[in-house]
């Protein structure tokens, strides 16, 4: 047996469990546990914080409380059965996860997706982004102490969730996208409902802005807090709104377009301040841009099929399945045996509400993936916590956690 490190070795060398006051610091510092049940840590994040008085000297996140083993479970499922798993990784943006996985497998197979499915995917993705940012704004404001915003943002989010329930049947675990298109044609009044929502959203966003932007407490808690320089952000692999708030002009929707994003006109909001306030401003602007993209997708919604013309991969229409023998056979084959994906590997990245969400899928030519790995934005952003919080007050940690908008489900997977 070669010298394999024991788990106890890892535990012994883990900086986290050694998070005792540093040598020579005497009695000046103490170690404080924040979470995993702390109301401001968003899920089950545990932070081990070393404090000197009220000043934070070290922050060590302890993750793994929400480990679900989704990555490993994916290896035991057919390609189409992985889609419901992906919902549960980042439960605030299920459609983005669905999209990213489907795009990755579609890239491996090499099938063309009909225009209508592409537009619907973009529309639902931008609604997902709005949904996620509404949750972020509500909870972030609640952490700082402004409870009212939470009630208003969740009212609008409720409408988005109802729209999700309308198309897919579930509010959060949508599982609506399929490899090769979309599961079902949206119901008849779906487009009207989305149009009405998009009509009221800009003024609602103004409302949140009016509630918060001029508020002296809000400004005082956010401005100049949790600074992250552009160089640090890039070095730590931070993506999404925190990266753009640090002044790096990088948005995958524009710079590496996927799923037809090159057809849409939108602005990528940037701020150079790199603090919590900048992230707030950038996300609010992003919500406005999302409304614009969704509006464009709605206006340009083409007709036609919602599934690719690939009978061996996509389940046939129910009408055809019940009337044509060939379709019925394909239906049985896909459900019981899955579909084979050519051997190879692929990495597909999309801009999730939190940053670069990537799926790395390896196929060995069978109907089940050999490996599905997710690159999750929250994981990288969490590593920047130390850089943002060190030397600041302990109350600022709460503001910073709110501003990086992490979802523990996608960190632990």
């Amino acid at each position: 047996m070669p010298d394999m490190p024991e788990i106890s070795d890892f535990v012994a060398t883990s900086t986290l469990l050694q998070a005792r006051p540093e040598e020579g610091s005497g009695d000046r510092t103490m170690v404080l546990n924040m979470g995993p049940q702390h109301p401001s840590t968003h899920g089950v994040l545990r932070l081990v914080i070393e404090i000197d008085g009220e000043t934070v000297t070290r922050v060590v996140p302890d993750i793994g409380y929400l480990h679900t083993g989704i990555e490993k479970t994916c290896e035991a499922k057919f390609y189409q059965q992985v889609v419901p798993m992906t919902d549960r990784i980042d439960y605030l943006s299920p459609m983005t996860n669905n999209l990213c996985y489907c795009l990755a497998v579609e890239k491996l197979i090499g099938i063309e997706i009909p225009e209508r499915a592409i537009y619907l995917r973009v529309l639902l993705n931008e609604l997902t982004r709005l949904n996620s940012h509404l949750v972020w704004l509500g909870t972030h404001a609640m952490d700082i102490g402004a409870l009212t915003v939470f009630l208003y943002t969740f009212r609008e989010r409720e409408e988005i969730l109802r729209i999700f329930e309308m198309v897919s049947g579930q509010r959060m675990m949508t599982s609506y996208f399929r490899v090769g298109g979309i599961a079902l044609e949206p119901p008849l009044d779906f487009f009207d409902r989305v149009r009405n929502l998009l009509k009221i959203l800009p003024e609602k966003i103004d409302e949140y802005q009016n509630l918060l932007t001029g508020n002296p407490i809000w400004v005082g808690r956010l401005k100049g807090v949790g600074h992250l320089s552009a160089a640090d952000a890039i070095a730590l692999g931070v993506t999404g709104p925190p990266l753009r708030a640090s002044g790096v002009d990088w948005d995958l929707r524009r710079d590496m377009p996927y799923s037809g994003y090159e057809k849409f006109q939108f602005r990528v909001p940037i701020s150079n301040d790199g603090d919590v306030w900048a992230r707030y401003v950038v996300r609010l602007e992003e919500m406005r841009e999302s409304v614009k993209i969704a509006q464009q997708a709605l206006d340009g919604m083409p007709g036609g099929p919602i599934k690719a013309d690939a009978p061996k991969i996509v389940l046939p229409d129910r009408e055809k399945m019940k009337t044509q023998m060939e379709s019925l056979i394909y239906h049985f084959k896909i459900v019981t045996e899955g579909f084979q994906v050519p051997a190879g590997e692929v990495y597909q990245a999309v801009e999730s509400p939190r940053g670069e969400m990537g799926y790395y899928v390896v196929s060995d030519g069978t109907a089940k993936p050999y490996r599905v790995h997710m690159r999750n934005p929250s994981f990288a952003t969490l590593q920047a916590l130390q850089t943002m919080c060190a030397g600041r007050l302990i109350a600022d940690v709460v503001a910073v956690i709110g501003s990086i908008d992490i979802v523990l489900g996608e960190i632990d997977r």
Partner: protein
Amino acid sequence: MTRGWCKEYTAASYTVVMSIVRNIAGITKGMSITFREMLQPTEVENYPDGPGPTRGAVLQERFRGAHELQRDENGLEKCVACFLCAAACPSNCIYIEAAENTAEQRISSAERYAKVYNIDYNRCIFCGYCVEACPTDAITHGHGFELASLNATNLVMRKEDMLVANVGMPGQLAAHSDSLK
């Protein structure tokens, strides 16, 4: 010297006053929204004290709730025990045992029927794959959502728990219409 100090003092107090004014303006702006919202209609689903079978919960048409096993127009079970739902299920929560229909006892319209049809709601993730897979539309998602139980064994639903009521032959429908109401 004194005049200089005085000037600085005035400038400082001016900034303080201005910041107080700005802060009051900011809070007033925020509070004006709060007061305006007070006049807006309440957005509350009055669950569980609302009217109707869902007790006030608003569900969309496609809501994926507790499963229902459907019957055809003759009152026979639609399920033909093809096992497609069990194969499609990502969480392996469906258990089926098939049996042959006989001339004396006809349960479904095809050759076979599901003698045992269990769904383990401890495992079910309500993804809708079984409904999508079913070739005879036998299994559908109903709107039932009050599934929580203190005892995990209660969550294994049997065929009898999920099968819709038999309203009889089309000719008999009128006789049953009272019970339908």
